């Protein structure tokens, strides 16, 4: 009876009726009648899917495109002729000709009662809620004309707000028990922090032994936030403190902006997904009152140099010096959710993580040292803010080891959503802002840094540089237009091999580290790209078992589905279509740039000349740009 596939209970799994590969084959389709309209759908299509395909609106709450089916909120019920009870359309696969009615009085009344029941236990008022205006429950109440609390309304909050985590705030007084967070945490991400606890009316979502979120093995990815239909889950919002820093004339407030927020923030201002507003954002941030606006892509470029050099050094030790103790494959470390995931779930592999800090933290360290020196500002007076697509970045900047500048390297992490709120608060309509460039001394960065936002981006950026470092050829000669297509796209796990047939000169930048490239000649570099921790788990288990991925040299891991552009700090809602559009925006912007390789970024070249004089992975860079990790393990004390 051994069956490890039963991770999620079947009660929360879609009934997968095998959909026929060729819908035109006999028996491949089934004809149904929806609201007296005859249509034909592939066998196994759910009622909800059939209705959506035919522009029939059915309200949903527990349903989410990214998640398995729960069928628990019951808001999507419809009438199926011949059945005594109403059926949840999200969970009902069509396998025989049936007649469906989607808005009879029975259906409407049931939906209205269900909304009223949810509202009766939903504490607080909309105007004092972070999700006001973007709440699925609020929308439903509006859609169904709710004008009073038919079944009463909770007067006292039944739960305390859990603010123990640096990243995620849980306000269970607003929870409607749709279990999207549970399915996200256990099924989509396989982290396993949230589950339903208790029974009957007492059932609620909680953590292991009801511990505060800050004390359990949460990796802060915030994917639960992105899928919560109400305000029950949201990120720790430091924008009030950021405002007061801006308002304080003695503070020099700088902000770095990551690539993904720019590709998505337009959604917060009513634009379709897929519009990059990079330079508009620069202007808006200045108008809000930030003293300097920097491009995180600069340190993304720096990451490529540092992490790439680290990889070359590891490979040199392993291949040229035959040192068996070298930890390979090297794992990327820019995704703080992934880093914490590894620290909890595979702590024995922390040496495989690149010691290079994430771009956010590299920038933090440079702002309070290099930039402070250069601009003659006391680092104590600098408030360093980062706008990230990420909730885990809030945790990352609070890691105690992230103070290599002598100060807290990054003071506050803002999500895309929070920054959009600040911009709206300032009365700015972002899409109409004029365009301006990033501030010196870091200036505009390369397209390589930019594509860090999409899954595969770090790998692509690294390939663009390493190919040129090793072979001396142009990346364009190997990959058309320098677009490394094999690492793009949303497949959960991507794998590629690059055989090195000829080698060139070692570039000046790292000449002091390795004598030549001859040891790499004839080697096939194996790399993989992984996004979403559920996929990461698969790859890690393969590595432990000595499978294909254990032979890799370099693996890019991102905690969030789609990479940073699908991060836990991005605009809500999210689904694969939206994430794809954001990716397109990022790749289009990359193509439009003149400089698309990290090592060609003139400011990178300059910083190694002027400041990090002992080169990549040198003493100074080690002090400021590298870090170490903690073997956390899974056990909760």
């Amino acid at each position: 009876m051994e069956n490890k596939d039963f991770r999620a209970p079947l009660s929360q799994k879609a009934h997968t009726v095998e959909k026929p590969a060729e819908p035109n084959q006999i028996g491949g389709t089934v004809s149904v009648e929806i609201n007296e309209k005859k249509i034909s759908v592939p066998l196994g299509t759910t009622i909800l899917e059939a209705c959506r395909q035919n522009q029939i609106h059915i309200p949903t709450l527990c349903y989410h495109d990214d998640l398995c089916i729960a069928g628990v909120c019951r808001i999507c019920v419809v009438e199926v002729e011949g059945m005594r009870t109403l059926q949840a359309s999200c969970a009902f696969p069509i396998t025989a000709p049936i007649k469906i009615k989607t808005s009879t009085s029975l259906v409407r009344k049931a939906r209205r009662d269900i909304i009223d029941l949810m509202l009766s236990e939903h504490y607080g008022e909309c105007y004092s809620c972070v999700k006001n205006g973007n709440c699925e429950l609020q929308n439903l109440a509006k859609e169904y004309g709710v004008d009073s609390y038919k079944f009463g309304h909770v007067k006292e909050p039944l739960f305390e707000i859990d603010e123990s985590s640096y990243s995620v705030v849980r306000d269970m007084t607003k929870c409607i028990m749709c279990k999207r967070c549970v399915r996200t945490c256990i099924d989509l991400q396989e982290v396993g922090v949230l589950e339903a606890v208790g029974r009957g009316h007492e059932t609620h979502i909680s953590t292991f032994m009801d511990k505060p979120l800050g004390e359990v093995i949460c990796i802060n990815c915030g994917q639960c936030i992105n899928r919560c239909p109400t305000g029950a889950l949201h990120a720790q919002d430091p924008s009030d403190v950021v405002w007061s820093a801006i308002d304080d004339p003695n503070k020099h407030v700088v902000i770095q902006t990551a690539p993904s927020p720019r590709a998505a923030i337009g959604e917060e201002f009513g634009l379709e997904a897929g519009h990059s507003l990079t330079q508009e954002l620069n202007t808006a941030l200045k108008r809000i009152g930030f003293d300097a606006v920097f491009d995180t892509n600069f340190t993304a470029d720096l990451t490529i140099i540092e992490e790439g050099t680290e990889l070359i050094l590891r490979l040199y030790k392993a291949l040229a010096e035959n040192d068996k103790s070298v930890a390979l494959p090297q794992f990327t470390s820019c995704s703080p959710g992934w880093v914490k995931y590894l620290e909890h779930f595979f702590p024995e592999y922390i040496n495989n993580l690149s010691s290079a800090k994430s771009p956010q933290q590299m920038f933090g360290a440079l702002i309070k040292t290099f930039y402070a020196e250069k601009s003659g500002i006391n680092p104590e007076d600098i408030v360093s803010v980062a706008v990230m697509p990420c909730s885990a970045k809030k945790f990352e900047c609070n890691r105690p080891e992230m103070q290599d500048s002598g100060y807290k390297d990054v003071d506050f992490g803002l999500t895309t959503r929070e920054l959009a709120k600040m911009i709206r608060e300032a009365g700015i309509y972002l899409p109409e802002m004029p365009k301006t460039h990033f501030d010196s001394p870091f200036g505009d960065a390369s397209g390589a840094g930019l594509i860090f936002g999409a899954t595969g981006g770090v790998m692509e950026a690294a390939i663009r540089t390493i190919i040129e470092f090793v072979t001396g050829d142009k990346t364009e000669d190997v990959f058309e237009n320098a677009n490394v297509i094999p690492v793009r796209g949303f497949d959960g796990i991507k794998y590629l091999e690059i055989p090195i047939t000829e080698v060139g000169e070692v570039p000046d930048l790292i000449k002091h580290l390795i004598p030549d490239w001859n040891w790499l000649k004839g080697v096939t570099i194996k790399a993989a790209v992984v996004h979403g921790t559920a996929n990461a788990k698969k790859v890690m288990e393969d590595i432990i078992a000595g499978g294909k991925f254990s032979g890799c040299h370099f693996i890019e891991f991102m905690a969030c589905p789609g990479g940073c552009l699908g991060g836990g700090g991005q605009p809500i809602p999210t689904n694969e279509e939206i994430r794809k559009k954001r990716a397109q925006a990022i790749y289009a912007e990359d193509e439009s740039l003149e400089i698309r390789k990290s090592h060609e970024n003139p400011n990178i070249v300059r910083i190694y000349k002027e400041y990090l004089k002992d080169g990549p992975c040198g003493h100074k860079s080690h002090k400021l740009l590298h870090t170490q990790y903690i073997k956390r393990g899974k056990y909760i004390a």
Partner: protein
Amino acid sequence: MTITKTKRTGSVIFSEYKSGESIKKALSLKRDDILFEMRTSKLKGRGGAGFPTATKWMLAAASISKEKFVICNADEGEPGTFKDRVLLLEYPELVMDGMVVAGYTIGAEKGIIYLRGEYEYMIQSLEDYLENMRRENLLGNNILQTGFNFDVSIRMGSGAYVCGEETALIESLEGQRGEARNKPPYPVNTGFLGRPTIVNNVETLCAVSHIVVKGGEWFKTYGTDKSTGSKLFSISGDCKYPGVYELPWGTSINELLDKVGASHTKAVQVGGASGICLSKNEFDRKLSFEDVPTGGSIMIFNETRDMIKILKNYMEFFVEESCGQCTPCRIGNKKLLEGVKMIEEGTITYSYLKSLRELGHTMQVASKCGLGQSSPNSFISITEKFKDEIFRYGNGGNNGK
């Protein structure tokens, strides 16, 4: 507790039966012949829902799978039901033989008894009985040298009423919270561990043992056209002789009350807390799938009893025993309970009472499983039929007190 084998009398379930009899007979028949007898008998599930057993078995028999399961639902948790306790303690041969027959018919080799946690004291006698069957080659490998393998294991519940719902039961067996699944798919296709599974009530399996030996036609001679055979009733409450009775389907409430020595009866709750409440003028109604269907729980209340207190007891039960996954059941039952408390306090308005009754109707059609679909039954029936008792608490008018 001592197990006393009182000699019980009844026309079908309690009729003569020698242990192992149905297994011997079944193994000499073809699967189709057994299914034919089952179909002839028109046996319906005895747990309460009344799904035709033959249909369930045929679907499971037709499913192609390397592994199938027979599950005996012994999670008897409906308030006022205790017939399965009697069957398991006093007639284990009927239950076990029925499981073996079911296994043979649908092509399963594994049977599981899901025994409610409250019945843990029975486990030793049941295990002993199974061991005895194994010794007699009525269980295990190559049963009676026919090449048929079947064994039964016992799994315990841990105090959750909802696990009596078949898909919640299966979830529980799989090590999950007892939360009902979405249907379709039904367990006959995708059941325990995703395999075809039949879940049958203890009493249903007992009826199977008799049907196999005596035939579907014989079974049909008892009861009514649509409710064939007899039914075990668990009688409790205000009467002289509570206990388990075997009566033919079609027996009226009045006849039953006479038999158990009930007098000055005000109300009869049929089907447990999830059933319906009948008032005096309905006592001529008949217990059957055509009229008043039931899993067999009959609770009798005499004229001294307070129906609102009784209703409150039921609703407290559901608020706690709902699995809590779907909205109508999780919150709806709580709202109904609050309504009962408002009645007690004399603060309910009739318009709100009406809203609650309508909510009850929504719960009946929109809840995910049978628990939420039936939990408002008593609220609806009691508040409709015993309005005078609501008045007595000082409710009235639309202005509250």
